[in-house]
């Protein structure tokens, strides 16, 4: 069992206390440092959404022989920012007949759930907002919380499309959460820890230390396991082909049909935030986290260089998964709700269970 690392805020608190000539930081330094980390994470979420939405529109355009946004800023890079400002300036409409309190509160739950998932993500060596010893459980639980916000939005809107959308989300959640959780258990069994940072650190070294192809023979279990996790993750992020709660061609906009202005933005932004955090989580669990594939980080001393090197590989691997999610959205048609059920219960769940049993056996024997 590896010892857990200090949260990022305590490193910052020590550094801040050092500026004032103190050896050990007192509580005000810790509070300030925690606020700094929280701000950094919020900024990261916003940045990920801004870049993600731009990339999505650009890649979608290119896949359809279009150019995508190219009017605001060079190559349209400021388009998302302009859209954000537009959303802020728009009227916040609460329709007649809506449950006002629930209607107003729902977007916050969705946003906070997407944001809280970032807490356990290992971005670089010793750079974890909080290295929880139940990190994997925490992440899966918090991502699942989003559903409550969506059901609230669908119910409070008093609109048949919204209600159908949120009902589909519930039906989807109960089916994808099982394979998602079980697939995440396999790396946990191999690494012997529930800390996301601990799992990422157990894969240090050459790329055959990565969970997905650990020592070669683990690939038999881990490749299907990773695919199950990835597919269930797509469903968790409500991405096509699992975007049934939104389903713009059938349900107008699904659960956020009645939302306008920044409250709509608070549904739109977390979609990309969740996409990114799930990609990052899959990276940490299966693809070696922030470690480079050539074992260069093994003897590296902790410092700015190591953090930048770690961040580089973290964003590179996460970016590849993020891109594949976008590419899949513009490739596959949307499934029907019964097809989602079939896929999750009859295909993903048996595979995930088989992987878990095999992992346990391999751990016992080897």
């Amino acid at each position: 069992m590896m010892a857990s690392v200090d949260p990022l805020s305590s490193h910052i608190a020590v550094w801040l206390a050092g500026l004032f000539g103190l050896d050990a930081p007192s509580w005000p330094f810790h509070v300030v440092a925690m606020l700094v980390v929280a701000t950094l994470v919020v900024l990261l979420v916003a940045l990920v959404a801004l870049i993600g939405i731009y990339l999505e529109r650009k890649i979608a355009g290119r896949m359809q022989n279009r150019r995508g946004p190219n009017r605001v800023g060079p190559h349209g890079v400021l388009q998302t920012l302009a859209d954000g400002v537009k959303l802020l300036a728009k009227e916040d409409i609460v329709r007649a007949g809506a449950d006002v309190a629930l209607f107003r509160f729902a977007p916050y739950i969705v946003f906070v759930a997407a944001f809280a998932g970032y807490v356990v993500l290992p971005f670089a060596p010793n750079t974890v907002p909080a290295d929880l010893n139940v990190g994997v459980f925490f992440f899966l639980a918090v991502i699942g919380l989003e559903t409550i916000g969506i059901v609230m939005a669908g119910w409070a809107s008093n609109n048949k499309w919204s209600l159908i959308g949120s009902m589909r989300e519930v039906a989807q959640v109960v089916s994808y959460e099982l394979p998602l959780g079980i697939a995440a258990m396999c790396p946990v069994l191999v690494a012997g820890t529930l800390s996301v940072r601990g799992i990422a650190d157990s894969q240090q070294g050459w790329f055959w230390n990565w969970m997905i192809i650990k020592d070669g023979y683990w690939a038999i279990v881990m490749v299907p396991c990773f695919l199950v996790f990835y597919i269930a993750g797509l469903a968790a992020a409500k991405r096509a082909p699992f975007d049934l709660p939104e389903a713009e061609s059938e349900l107008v906009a699904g659960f956020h049909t009645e939302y306008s202005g920044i409250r709509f933005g608070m549904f739109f932004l977390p979609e990309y935030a969740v996409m990114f955090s799930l990609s990052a989580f899959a990276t940490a669990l299966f693809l070696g986290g922030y470690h480079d594939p050539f074992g260069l980080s093994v003897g590296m001393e902790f410092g700015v260089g190591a953090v930048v090197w770690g961040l580089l590989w973290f964003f590179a691997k996460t970016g590849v998964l993020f891109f594949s999610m976008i590419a899949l959205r513009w490739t596959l048609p949307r499934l029907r709700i019964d097809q989602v059920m079939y896929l999750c219960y009859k295909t993903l769940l048996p595979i995930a269970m088989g992987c878990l049993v095999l992992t346990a056996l391999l751990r016992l024997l080897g």
Partner: protein
Amino acid sequence: MMALKGWAHRVWMGLKTTFIGLSITVPYIFRRPYTLQYPEEVPELPPSERGLHNFEIDKCIACDQCSKICPVDCITIEGEGKGKLARIRTFEIDYTKCLFCALCCEPCPTECIHMGPTFDLVGYTRDEVIINYADRENPRTFSEGEKLPYEIASFARK
């Protein structure tokens, strides 16, 4: 056992078809988009394009032939003088009516009216799309590209 085989086959086909789909869509990312950035880039039109008219004011003898043949009566002509000495004063084409049939070009005895390549005429009012080609103070000028089709047309008629 058969059921399990069928299940495995469906799982395999699901994965396989997804990758076939991706292998079609992903290469498109690296292709050039077909979109034309219209106001900045003008499309290349065939020389036979029937757009706004090209009118040669000095050749016109105000014979009213084009106005008579026009099926929607969009040409208004006023002239002064008689016979071959006649000179045009107003030559208005109402583009709210014009259907770009090119019938007006056929009967012209001096070959002074042709269909040009310009297709984008815009205005805030209907009056702005009624063009007087005989306005000697500010005549409509033609670019090199606009002259080409009329040269081809007059060559074809010889």
